[in-house]
C-alpha cells in the first residue's frame, strides 16, 4: 500500500470515512469557524451576564442579597436542621 505524501488525506488527518468527505478543507475551515464562534459566543454571554448584573445593582445591595434566603418562616438566627429525634 502506498502511503506516500501524495496519497495521504489532505491536512494529514486520517479517519475512517475521511475519503468520502469531499472538499475536506472546507470542512476543517467550517469547524474552526464554528469552534471559535462558539467560544466567542460563550465569552460574550458571560460578559453580557456580568454587565446585566452590574446594571441591575446586584453588586450594590450586598447585605440585602445575602439575607434574601431568609424570610418570616425561616428567619435569620434560627437553625433549620438537626438529627431526627434530637433537640438543639
Amino acid at each position, binding site marked *: 500500500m502506498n502511503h506516500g505524501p501524495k496519497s495521504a488525506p489532505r491536512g494529514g*488527518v*486520517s*479517519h475512517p*470515512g*475521511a475519503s468520502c*468527505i469531499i472538499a*475536506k478543507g472546507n*470542512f476543517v475551515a467550517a*469547524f474552526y469557524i464554528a*469552534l471559535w464562534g*462558539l467560544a466567542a459566543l*460563550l465569552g460574550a*454571554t*458571560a460578559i453580557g451576564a*456580568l454587565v446585566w*448584573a452590574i446594571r*441591575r445593582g*446586584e*453588586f450594590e*445591595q*450586598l*447585605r*440585602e*442579597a*445575602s*439575607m*434574601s*434566603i*431568609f*424570610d*418570616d*418562616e*425561616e*428567619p*435569620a*438566627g*434560627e*437553625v*433549620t*436542621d*438537626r*438529627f*431526627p*429525634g*434530637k*433537640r*438543639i
Partner: protein
Amino acid sequence: MASTAETIPPPAPEERERLTRIQIDRSCRQTVVWYYASAVFWLLTGSALALIASIKMHTPEFLADWEWLTFGRARPAHLAAMIYGWGSMAGVGTLLWLQARLTRTRLPFPTLLPATAVIWNLTVAFGVAAILAGYSTSIEWIEIPPATAVLFGFCIAVILAASIRMFRQRESKHTYVSQWYLFGAIFWFPLLYVSAQIFLHTPAAAGAVKAAANWWFAHNVLGLWFTPIGLATVYYLIPKVIGRPVHSYHLSLLGFWTLAIFYNWAGTHHLIGGPLPAWLITVGIVGSVMMFVPVVTVAVNHHLTMVGHFHYLKHSPTLRFVVYGAMCYTAVSFQGSLQSLRSVNEISHFTHYTIAHAHLGVYAFFTMVMFGAIYYVAPRLLNAEWHSAGWIRVHFWSTAAGMAVYWLGLTWAGWEQGRMMNDPRVPFLDIVKFTVPWLWSRSAAGVLMTIGHLSFAWLFWNILRQRGAYLPGPTLLARKGEPAGAAAGGGE
C-alpha cells in the same frame, strides 16, 4: 375594620409566606424525589462496580471468568454510573429544588420534568450496559456511546427551560449567588456535552487533538457542572442551616466570576508532557493556578460564615456533610493547582496519586455535599423525618473515614510510584508490586464507603415509605426544643 363587602380577609403575610413554601416544596416532590431515588440507585450500582474494579487491580483472578466485568469494562462502567448516574442526578435534583426555593416559584412542567428523570435513567443504563458489553468509546469520562448526547441533550433542554421559566417568574429582586452558579451549570453542561461528543466522534478532533478535546470535556464536567452545583448548594445550605447569612456576599460574587473566567481553561493540565504544543498546555497550567483566587475566596467566605458556629456540626447531619465537602473542595483545589505545575506533575502523572485526587474532588467534595443536600431536602419534600439518627451517623463516619483511608493510601502509593518510575534503576515490576498493598487499602476504603452508601440507601428507602397524604402546615422539621413530628401533623 374590614368593610362589610369583604367577607374573607386575605391571609396574613406570614401565612402567605408559609403556604408558598409548602407549595414550592410540594411542587418539587415528584421530580426531585425521582431524581434522588435514581441517584441512590446509581450510587449503589457504581459502588459495586467500583469494588469489582478495585479488587481486580490487586487480585486479577477475581471474577475473571466473566468477560463483561473485565477491568477495562468495569472501571469505565463505574465512572459512567457515578458521573452520569449518581452525581448528575443528585445534582439535577438539588439544582431544581434550589432554584424553586431561590426564585420562590413552583417547579414547572409537572409531567415533563419527572419524565426526564426516567429518560435520564434509561440513558445511563444504556450507557453502562454498552460499556459492559464492550462498546466503550475508550475516551475517559465519556466512554458511553455518542447517541446518549441526544437523550441527555433533550433532558437538559427541559431542565434549562424550567430554570429560565422559574427565573423569569421570580419574586425576589436579588439573584442570590447560588442562582448564578446554578445557571452557569445548567447553561454550560449541555454545550459542553454535545460539543464534546461532536468533537470526539467526527473528524473534527482527530489524533493528538482528540486528547485535548477529551480533557477539555472531562475537566469541565468537574469545573462547570459539578463544582457550580456543589458550591451553589454549600452557599445556600450553610447559611440556611445555621441561620446566618454568608459572611461576605461581595466575596461570594468575586468567587463566582473568577471561577467562570478561569476554570474552563484548565483542561490541558491533564496532558502535561504530552504531544501537544507547549503553549496549549501552559494555558491549562495558568488557568489551574489562577483557580487559587476563587478557591481561596470561597474558603475564606465559608470559614468566616461558620466561625463561632462549628458546634452545630454535632446537631445537623446536613451541616456535617456539607462542611466536610466544602473543606475538601478547598483541599482538592489547592492540590489540583499544585499538581498542574510541571515539576509536580512530572512525579504525579500516570500514578495512583491522580486517582486519589480525583476522588477527593468528586467524592469528598461533590458527593458529600450532595449527601448533605439530600438530608436537608428529602424531609421537606416527603413530609417525613429520617427514621434513624444512628444510621445517619454510620453513613457519615463510614464515608468520611473511608475517604480518608482512600486518599492517604493512594496518595502515598502514587507519589512513591511516580518517584520510582522516574528512576531508571528501579525495575517496573518492583514498582507494580510496591503498589499492591496500597491497592488493598483502597479496596478496604471502598468497602467502608459502600457500607456508608448502603446505610444511606436504607435511610432513603425508609423516608420514601413514610410518604403519606399531603400534610398542611410547615414542611419544616420540629422547631427548636420540640421533638420531631410535633409541627408536622395537625395542620395549622
